[in-house]
């Protein structure tokens, strides 16, 4: 989902950059207020895991491949704001170190994967988790559906940016992007639920998005 240079207009890049920087600044404030000594190393491990997992492209239909995004995974572990920062770090390193995603499109990439993927995905998760039964099963259903949404929403945001930039009309780009990422999203949902369930089995205290009662999300920052 990493948009390279030259696909988006300067206006779109500038606008998403401003939004992303603003969101990250607020994220820094939230993380600063709520993080303890324990969460900081967890943030490092999560970022490393996401980066490593993003390298692995799994094949989906029609000669296409997709990779894990991890936005919702880190949101559930660290809270949405720290997750936004983690996604930002991953995107910046991928851009500067590995030429994956354009430098001018970096604002858009952070916006799609961080602001939409992590923050937007977490909003869907909270909504579903409070809606569904407040049990272990409800938690995982909410997790699976919202991680699917985080991919599709991020891809749709990318399609809208492409349309505004005049690269590809919305009626072409949106169904194509949302369609393919609808399939990739299934892979995302499987990986996210598997990874989270593994962590829940071994270190349930690490998953701050998980509460048996489901209601007390105030802690989950």
């Amino acid at each position: 989902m990493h948009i390279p240079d030259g696909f988006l207009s300067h206006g779109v890049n500038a606008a998403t950059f401003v939004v992303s920087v603003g969101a990250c600044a607020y994220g820094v404030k939230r993380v600063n207020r709520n993080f303890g000594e324990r969460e900081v190393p967890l943030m490092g491990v999560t970022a490393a895991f996401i980066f490593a997992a993003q390298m692995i492209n799994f094949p989906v239909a029609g000669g296409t491949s997709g990779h894990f995004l991890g936005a919702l995974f880190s949101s559930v572990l660290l809270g949405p704001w720290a997750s936004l920062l983690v996604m930002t770090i991953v995107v910046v390193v991928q851009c500067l170190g590995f030429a994956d995603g354009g430098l001018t499109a970096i604002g858009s990439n952070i916006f799609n994967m961080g602001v939409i993927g992590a923050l937007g995905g977490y909003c869907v998760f909270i909504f579903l988790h409070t809606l569904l039964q407040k049990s272990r099963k409800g938690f995982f259903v909410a997790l699976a559906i919202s991680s699917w949404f985080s991919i599709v929403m991020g891809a749709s945001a990318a399609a809208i940016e492409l349309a505004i930039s005049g690269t590809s009309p919305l009626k072409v780009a949106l169904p194509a992007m949302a369609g393919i990422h609808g399939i990739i999203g299934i892979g995302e949902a499987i990986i996210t639920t598997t990874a989270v369930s593994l962590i829940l089995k071994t270190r349930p205290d690490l998953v701050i998005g998980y509460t048996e009662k489901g209601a007390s999300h105030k802690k989950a920052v």
Partner: protein
Amino acid sequence: MALLIALFLSPFASPSPDGFEKVAETKGFSEKGEGRTFWKVAPFSDYTLPWVKNEKVSTALSGLIGTLAIFLIALGAGKLIKKIPTKKIILFIFFPSLIFFSSMPAHAARPLTTDDAWTVEKGEFQLEAGSDALRQDSRDKEYSPSLTLTYGLLERMDLGIGSGYVFSHPKEGERENGMADTEIKLKYRWIDERNWRPAFTVSGTLKIPTASESKGLGSGQTDFGINAILTKTLGKKWAVHLNLGYTFIGEDHVNNGLNYSMAVQFLLTEKWALVGEVVGVNNFNGRHGDDPFSGLIGTYYSIAAKIIWDAGVEIGMSKAAPDFRLTTGLTWFFEP
């Protein structure tokens, strides 16, 4: 765990294009990005190490390095964030504008292209001498010294006139040199900065075609531009300038341009400041490649009470912008 994935699984990842690349290919806009990469010095381009021959080993190692690097960076960022006192961040994000100090020196002009809302004090002169070197399209070079004199007409109004000399060194064709175009600029500040309110200034610029058209140094036509300028100081050390302007271009077959820019100024010490900006022009001709867009970082230092030295590097981020431009200059304030 993450390291194991990077080391053992990444080489066997599907080589098919990912979802985004696939859509770009099938919907016929994948070529848009070709040759438009601005960051060409990525050490591990496309997840390979240039010095390792075996493709799979190369991918695995680059993934390993990346994973370790990410871990350290995220750890460092987390620690850094923990260290910042919360109060400071809140102040910075929410109430920066509540604190207003007038200690910010009323100077932002050079080396920025972005204009500030401040005007030269009434009865005072400001003389700016600059020297520019730029390269365009990877080959054509241009050197241009310039001089601008501005006079504070009223408390909120100044009038400036500036021109320069151009040495043009195109790779093909003859070297030319001659006088540059002359610009006359009148600036009036409508609103002073107070509390949360930014300063608002409007300027009009008249370009007189003193540069030789036959030598290819200018268009030979008069242009007129109008520019709206907002300036906001944030605390003692920061100032932000926003410009939005429209230029009526006299030359035939050239579209009028909408120019926009944003600059940030940060005082390191009382005498020394860092500046940065992004500048762009939209020509309204529907061809993105024709629109210059660039970023600049620079610094200025007050070497004496009324003399400021500055330097800056501008990096072009679109084809129409220069590849890079180096600029340095002096600004001198004096009263007759």
